[in-house]
């Protein structure tokens, strides 16, 4: 029986094409979910109105591990995103490298030369928890890191208006003004 001759190939093909179109459209309309890979104080955490620091205006500020939706548009090192900030939906540009496919997390690590206890332990990565342990175990390191804290606090206050939570948009404004005042840009 020549059942394949009666098989509705055209209909199946139409359904397959329709599905492919739907998948394609969904990818580009909904975009891809990504996560912010920089701290809220980073100049790269600012969502800009234009894909350029010197031309763009700040629209909002992202925080680390915040989920954003990429919209499939890119220009230079910037990509267009959609994100909800303070309950408001915003569309703007951020640096592609400030986004990651996975959220930031401290992962266990092993060295290529496996079995080394020190490296295996050290391989867990340095984060605030391990830094705290390091400080508690060493008064000298604690004193030295206290100076780093003081330095960061004064630098943050001067550049971003706040010792703990500097405003990245203010920092970007400093950079733009520096270029303009020094007549380094047209």
């Amino acid at each position, binding site marked *: *029986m020549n*059942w394949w001759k009666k098989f509705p190939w055209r209909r199946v093909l139409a359904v397959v094409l329709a599905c492919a179109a739907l998948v394609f459209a969904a990818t580009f309309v909904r975009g891809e979910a990504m996560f912010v*890979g*920089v*701290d809220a*104080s*980073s*100049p*790269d955490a600012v969502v800009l109105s234009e894909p350029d*620091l*010197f031309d763009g205006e700040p629209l909002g500020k992202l925080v*680390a591990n915040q989920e954003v939706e990429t919209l499939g548009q890119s220009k230079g090192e910037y990509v267009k995103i959609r994100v909800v900030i303070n309950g408001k939906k915003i569309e703007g540009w951020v*640096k592609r*490298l400030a986004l990651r496919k996975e959220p*930031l*997390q*401290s*992962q266990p*690590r*092993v*060295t*290529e030369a496996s079995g*080394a206890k*020190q490296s295996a*332990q*050290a*391989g*867990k990565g*340095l984060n*605030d928890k*391990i*830094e*705290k*342990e*390091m400080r508690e*175990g*060493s008064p000298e*390191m604690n004193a*030295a*890191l206290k*100076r*780093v804290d003081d*330095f*960061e606090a*004064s*630098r943050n*206050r*001067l*550049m971003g208006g706040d010792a703990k939570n500097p405003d*990245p948009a203010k*920092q*970007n404004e*400093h*950079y733009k003004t*520096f*270029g303009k005042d*020094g*007549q*380094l*840009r047209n």
Partner: protein
Amino acid sequence: MKKKFQHPLAGTLLAAILLFGLAGCKLFEALSEGVSALKQAKVADSYDPSEEYYIGRGVSAVIIDKYAPVEAKDNRTERQITYVNEMAGYVEAATKGVTRSAFALGSHISNEKDRNSRGEKAQERVANLVLYKGFQVGLLQTEEVTAFATPGGFLWISIGAVNLCNNEDELAAIVCHELAHIILNHGMDNYRAAYKGEIFTSTLGGWFKGDGEGSIFGRLVTSVAEDAFKGYNPEQEYEADAWGTRALAAAGYAPEAMVKVLERVEAYEKANDVKEEDYLAHHPPISNRVKYVKDLITKEKLKPNPKTMSGPAIQARNKRFEEAFR
């Protein structure tokens, strides 16, 4: 009764699918385990931006234990700290088009194979580098001519190095060279080398007791910091000169400022009889670097936009440099 269609091979086909399905599951499981082990083995090569930031904090702690930082205690010191941070942030933003390719940066190496010695993985890390909190620039209260760049975006410049500069463009040359070490991931390359080689040879090892994670990281970070006191390796220094010189031009500064600064460093070395253990002694011979930078400027015809080199523009930059540091 209508006869049901059944292909003679249908049963065999179904059995084969089931068999392959089962085998596939086992195969998939085994493959997954293999991939997972591979991922774990390789994961020591990848660090989150936040981890690089904490490594940078640890290395910075050792640097400012040796050299006291300039504290923002009055208008003058506040102006100085703001000025160098503004400069670094501006340069980073204005130099996006400057290549980070090891091939292009390693043009001082005649052998093409060695030019790519960093390998694809290292090159990929450079291409994907992002700083968790951006650049943070501090000044060190010492007349010694020295500067350090750590993983995670910390940059330290001595007052001695600032005093070596005659104008803003020359200070920008130092900033561009040090930014290059961060942007090209040199600090993390050295950290990885120390980590994989299990180098825990810090003279500050006595700061840490026991085998806890905190102590192990303490020893590692202090080892890397002490290594930083010796400077980067010659290849990294040439790369930083190449990126820094191109960055100067792209940011609107005179690329020749890099030559001027290197010549001043050379004069400083001669005048101060730089010892073997000193930071500068571990850099490649300055005369070679001067020649390399001069050749690069000529070969690539590097020059900034003429407007940024106009009299009023240079005056505006030098005025603020004088106000901050003289």
